[in-house]
């Protein structure tokens, strides 16, 4: 006989899960008792939300689903922000929650929450398991759904009695058979032909890459397509890193906080090729204006994204990697030099901003310095706020990754996500950049970093402000700084030391550069606090 809890652990083992992030509680204890006997590593976070963020950082770096675990009720509800963050950025994740005994469901007993109901809008799919015999199928399906098609989080809610109940034997299904779930991977041949014809006829083509290219692991295909076609490339925030920033084809990030040159190129194009980009409002504020002037080709694995935010002339539903392979193999370089001169001219017209300072650390300059000091395959995790934009605009991703909460814009993402990324790729440099606002949202994880010896490097841009909101207040609300002044910040260096983490404060760019070198060289975790002028603009 085998219990539901043991089956759950065996399912994870069968799926090749080696790391989980979680926080136990009574309703998930039977599962934890079997996890105790397994080789699977468990990282005890300090708040459930961060378990989900850590699983997200892990998933994005390891290119396989991250697993997070919480107990029923508040444990489960605390996961929601992390699950929603993963959902908005299409991150493969399996969240496992304990639930009260199934015969008590619906009676509002202690620590009961309808978590499958609450997570409905933020999950790709969810299960409330009522019978231990269903667990193998549910786990097989959950990992399949989370990691195929357009990836996303899947929730498995398991009542305590289902974890305890025993069935005669465990067999894990070979593959998931879901009648209503057959994601299309190959792009339609006719559509690809139409796209090639449109590319040939275009005078001012541009390629706009989103997070879908990263998720499809299609970087090489992307670069090859850009090289073979000669079409200039821009990226959304989620698409940063699909092509090296110093590549001759790259125009920069588009959008509200993007490069003016890249935005102008989008506006003047007569052919826009959207590639794994969902045309979110922060990336393209007036999609209809662009669609009126340009022909639009949209490549996406999720058919529901095509035509949702922008009218499309040539839809191609399929795995971006496979479609780009086909396009790259057949495309001819027919881009007029005049157009290239024009768009790359924009790049020179709108240079990067900021100058090194001696009284403060100028963050934009510092991120460029940091970028040049970091290894080729380093992973940078940006939080949310001004720090995110400073990183997005100034960090040069070469062979590494740029991780951030792009869709939901969740403050506090960077530290737990960096932990997850570092655990997935222990030999790579992993640096989290946050503000003093976002740092304080997840600084409890310093305990996790120490306990589990995760040597992430953290940069805190300290300006004593919720800088981005404060900027909005200056611009729109006549400078009434309501609730954006962060007085009461602790001495972050002393705080780090209290945890036994090395730390230093930089007050100028020169100092910051020197300390960053020290930070990147040291073996353990490190917190570099940068004193930033509150008046420093986002862009």
């Amino acid at each position, binding site marked *: 006989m085998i219990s539901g809890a043991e089956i759950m652990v065996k399912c994870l083992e069968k799926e090749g899960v080696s790391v989980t992030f979680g926080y136990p509680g009574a309703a998930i204890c039977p599962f934890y008792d079997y996890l105790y006997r397994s080789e699977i590593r468990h990282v005890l976070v300090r708040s459930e939300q961060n378990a989900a963020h850590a699983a997200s950082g892990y998933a994005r770096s390891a290119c396989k689903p991250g697993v997070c675990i919480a107990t029923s009720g508040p444990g489960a509800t605390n996961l929601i922000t992390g699950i929603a963050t993963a959902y908005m950025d299409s991150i493969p994740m399996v969240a496992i929650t304990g639930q009260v005994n199934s015969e008590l469901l619906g009676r509002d007993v202690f620590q009961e929450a309808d978590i499958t109901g609450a997570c409905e*809008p933020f999950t*790709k799919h969810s299960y409330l398991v009522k019978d231990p015999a269903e667990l193998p199928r549910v786990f097989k399906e959950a990992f399949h759904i989370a990691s195929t098609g357009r990836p996303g989080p899947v929730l498995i809610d398991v009542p305590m009695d289902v974890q305890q109940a025993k069935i005669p034997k465990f067999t894990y299904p070979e593959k998931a058979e879901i009648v209503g779930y057959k994601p299309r991977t190959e792009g339609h041949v006719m559509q690809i032909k139409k796209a090639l014809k449109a590319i040939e006829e275009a005078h001012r083509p541009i390629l706009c890459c989103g997070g879908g290219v990263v998720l499809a692991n299609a970087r090489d295909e992307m670069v090859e397509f850009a090289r073979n076609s000669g079409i200039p490339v821009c990226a959304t925030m989620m698409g940063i890193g699909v092509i090296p920033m110093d590549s001759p084809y790259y125009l920069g990030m588009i959008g509200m906080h993007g490069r003016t040159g890249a935005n102008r190129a989008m506006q003047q194009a007569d052919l826009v090729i959207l590639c794994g980009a969902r045309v979110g409002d922060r990336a393209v504020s007036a999609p209809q204006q662009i669609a009126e002037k340009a022909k639009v080709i949209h490549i996406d694995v999720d058919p*529901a994204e095509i*035509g949702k935010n922008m009218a499309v002339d040539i839809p191609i539903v399929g795995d971006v990697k496979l479609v780009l392979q086909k396009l790259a193999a057949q495309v001819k370089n027919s881009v007029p030099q005049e157009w290239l001169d024009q768009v790359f001219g924009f790049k020179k017209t709108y240079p990067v901003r900021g100058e090194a300072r001696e009284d403060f650390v100028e963050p934009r300059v510092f991120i460029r310095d940091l970028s040049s000091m970091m290894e080729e395959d380093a992973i940078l995790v940006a939080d949310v706020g001004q720090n995110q934009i400073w990183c997005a605009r100034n960090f040069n991703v070469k062979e590494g990754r740029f991780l951030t909460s792009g869709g939901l814009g969740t403050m506090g993402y960077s530290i737990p996500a960096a932990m997850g990324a570092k655990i997935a790729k222990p030999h790579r440099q992993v640096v989290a950049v946050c503000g003093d606002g976002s740092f304080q949202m997840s600084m409890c994880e310093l305990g996790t970093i120490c306990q589990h010896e995760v040597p992430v490097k953290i940069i805190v841009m300290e300006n004593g402000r919720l800088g981005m909101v404060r900027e909005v207040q200056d611009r729109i609300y006549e400078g009434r700084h309501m609730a954006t002044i962060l007085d009461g910040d602790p001495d972050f260096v002393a705080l780090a030391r209290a945890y036994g983490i090395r730390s230093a404060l930089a007050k100028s760019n020169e100092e910051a550069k020197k300390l960053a070198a020290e930070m990147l060289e040291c073996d353990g975790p490190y917190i570099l606090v940068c004193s930033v002028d509150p008046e420093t603009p986002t862009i």
Partner: protein
Amino acid sequence: MKYTLSVLVENQPGVLSKVSGLFARRGFNIDSLAVGVTENAAISRMTIVVNGDEYIVEQVEKQLNKVIPVIKVKVLQPGAFISGELALIKVSCSPKQRVEIVNIADLMNARIVDVTPTSLTLQSADTAERTATLIDLLHPYGIKEICRTGTIALEKGADPTRKN
């Protein structure tokens, strides 16, 4: 404009809430939604009548297809399907008015299913338009209560929605 969608779903708990939640979340307006099992006990059919334009109905179709237990979504083409709904209408009726209302029922192919000294209850199984006409005709007598199932529909012709 009204669109009628025929949606085959896995017959399992929570599917209705997934579908109705999707409509609420994305701001789609449901005119009616009717669910029942099909010839296959593992599959239910939802007939959903949606109010909107071409863009909305395309979005509804695509978003429904993303719901994992949804097996097949078909937007039924006007004129290419038959539809109907069941309605129970309780109307005030004095003994003197009874003949008039029975006449209306006859005209509209409705059945009288309950009689009291002060009321009649009619049962109608017809298209949404004819049900509306019946309700209009009964209105002057004083309608006490109405219960409608919402439209159900099937495509015309010999082929099933989902070919095996």
